[in-house]
């Protein structure tokens, strides 16, 4: 009886593993296949077997074609610059607000908190047009300011603020109180005690924010026309509209836009996933 049960268990586990591997393949395969297609010639793309993962002949020129047709280097640079700036701004602003909501008492605290959380329910398109008009008014259209300032104040900022607040609750109050008794101002406490102790939460916040900015599409699409200012997602969409010759080149461009994210993901996997696990909260 027990032996049978063991066999059953082993069989079950085997099936489980097979299922997991199949799912993993489903998740990763399209990317592998896209990369392989990006090295194929037009001939092979249209007349060959798409399941053939080895391009023969390989055409790495697809990548130089893509790189030359539109300024991918520029797109990536723009995105790094904008994402870096917005992430840092959100980290600072969000954690400051998170601390205030976690530890400080002030009039209107709850109302403001609920109002900020409430903005997450508002679909992006509600604020899209007025923000566009505001850009027009400030003459920020087609300029970097439009990419750097308004995106700081989005749902990710609120999510991050919430995340930091939750985390700050878990920092022992005594640490702060001791410092205050010693005469530290709140600001100093924040800088010297809270932030150094909140690194994991900050890392998670930073990753979520950076990833969201990297993938931003609609807002840059409507405020930027100048090719040299486009961030990578808009650049990729522009590329598709312009370099229509063949799918090999298009997929090469797509791969170029994904590679930095893949690198960051592989290096910092644990922050992506663990962050979500510890906070049990996310926001997309």
């Amino acid at each position, binding site marked *: 009886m027990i032996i049978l049960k063991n066999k059953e268990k082993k069989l079950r586990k085997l099936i489980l593993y097979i299922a997991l591997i199949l799912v993993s393949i489903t998740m990763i395969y399209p990317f592998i296949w896209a990369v392989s297609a990006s090295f194929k010639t037009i001939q092979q793309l249209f007349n060959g077997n798409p399941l053939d993962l080895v391009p023969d002949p390989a055409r790495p020129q697809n990548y130089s074609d893509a790189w030359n047709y539109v300024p991918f280097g520029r797109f990536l640079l*723009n995105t790094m610059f904008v994402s870096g700036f917005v992430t840092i701004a959100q980290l600072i602003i969000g954690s400051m607000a998170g601390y205030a909501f976690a530890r400080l008492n002030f009039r209107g605290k709850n109302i403001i908190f609920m109002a900020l959380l409430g903005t997450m329910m508002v679909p992006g398109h509600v604020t899209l047009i007025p923000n566009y008009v505001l850009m*027009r008014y400030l003459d920020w259209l*087609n300029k970097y300011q439009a990419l750097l300032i308004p995106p700081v104040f989005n749902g990710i900022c609120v999510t991050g603020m919430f995340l930091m607040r939750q985390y700050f609750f878990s920092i022992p109050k005594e640490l702060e109180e001791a410092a205050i008794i010693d005469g530290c101002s709140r600001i100093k406490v924040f800088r010297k005690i809270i932030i150094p102790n909140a690194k994991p939460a900050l890392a998670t916040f930073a990753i979520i924010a950076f990833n969201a900015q990297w993938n931003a599409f609609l807002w840059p699409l409507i405020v930027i026309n*100048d090719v040299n200012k486009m961030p990578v997602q808009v650049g990729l969409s522009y590329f598709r509209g312009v370099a229509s*010759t*063949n799918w090999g080149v298009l997929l090469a461009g797509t791969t170029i836009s994904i590679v930095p994210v893949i*690198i960051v993901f592989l290096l910092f996997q644990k922050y992506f996933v663990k962050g979500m696990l510890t906070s049990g909260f996310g926001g997309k």
Partner: protein
Amino acid sequence: MSKSTRKLTAVAIILVLVFAMAGCSKAAEAPAAETAAKPTEAPVEKTKVRVTSWWNYTDSKPLQQLKAGFEAKNADYELVFEQIPTQYADKVLAVVAGGGDQVPDVMMLAMDRIPQFAKAGAIQPLDGLMNEEYKNSLYPVVFDAVKFDGKVYAAPRDITSFVMFCNKKLFDEAKVAIPEEGWTWEDFLSISKKLTKVEGGNAVQWGYYFPKYHDTVFTWLIQNGAAYTTPDGKEGTLSKPEGKAALKFLQDLVLKHKVCPTETEAKQFGTDSSAAFIAGKVAMQIGGLSMSVALDKNNVDYMMVPLPKGAKQASTAFVNAWTMPKGAKNAEAAWKVIEYFSSKEGQQIVLDTKMGLPASKDVDVKGFLQQRPDNKSLTDALAYSIPFQTFENSAKYYDLVKNNLDLVWLGEKSVDAAADEIDKNAKDVLSGK
């Protein structure tokens, strides 16, 4: 520094360096390409004139030559070209509406948007700036296309007439003769069928492809003696028998005879409208002179023949033009540029670089005709071309048309229902309600 912080910093530094190098070199290329025409640095501060179009300057021979030609004659001016690659009319309208620094001095505009922009005051009338000699040198059909409410709002860039492009390789393989002037819709249908190949239940080659542009549909409509609307642009006429018959003929091509691929089927070869033709999957396609540029670039063996004849022989004339937007900073300079672009010399450049046929009667087409014998089909077509119908509320009207005709091509709506629906709403939409 902890291990992960070090990793992060290293990655960040490497990435930034790589992209900075690439980014700087690419951004530097653009101005370098523009100054390539002028090898010596002019000591005088040049007046910059900004020109917006949907063409990519680095790829565009006509823009490069127009720039060279203009600057040769006007040494104290410098032309700066900007591109809005997709959804041009919508985006450029927003730019003009935004006012301020973003507004260019000269703006390319397709004829179908001229009424809308003129009505909204987005472009400036050019009557006062044109002289009689200039006005008389234009073909009448062109002149009508750039007028709104009695005033001239644009100067023509070129005029396009449509012909049928035939993929020689596919014709030869199927041993079908290239059609000649005078061939009819029936001939067209039978040739399309012969050139459509089906293997294993799937079509691998199609006889004809039409990207569902409104001006292509218009071409078939006018051949059957129909049109989108009455000449005054106030009421829809698609639901007249001639209109419905033309639409039914087109629908049958896709659904009944299956000689025409669907949009997704054609797009898999590339997103350009001529991609399927270039890939050798489509034997015939209607297009203008500019289509030959992409075909030549890809070494496609083709022949241009006049369109097949319906109830009558007709083709669509489409005019692209140069306009001066409202709020252009330097109106005088802008007009200088516009005048040059649409002058005999400017149009010769456009003809030589194969972007379109000249709108001016004075341009010499002999060289063009000698280049390829079948170029004659293009110039001949001008004689029986009718200008594409444009309205103040073009955007909304053609939106209405698109939404209904899309369903027709998918077989989800009958031609009768669609045409009736379009005409039912046409009056309100055209009048701007």
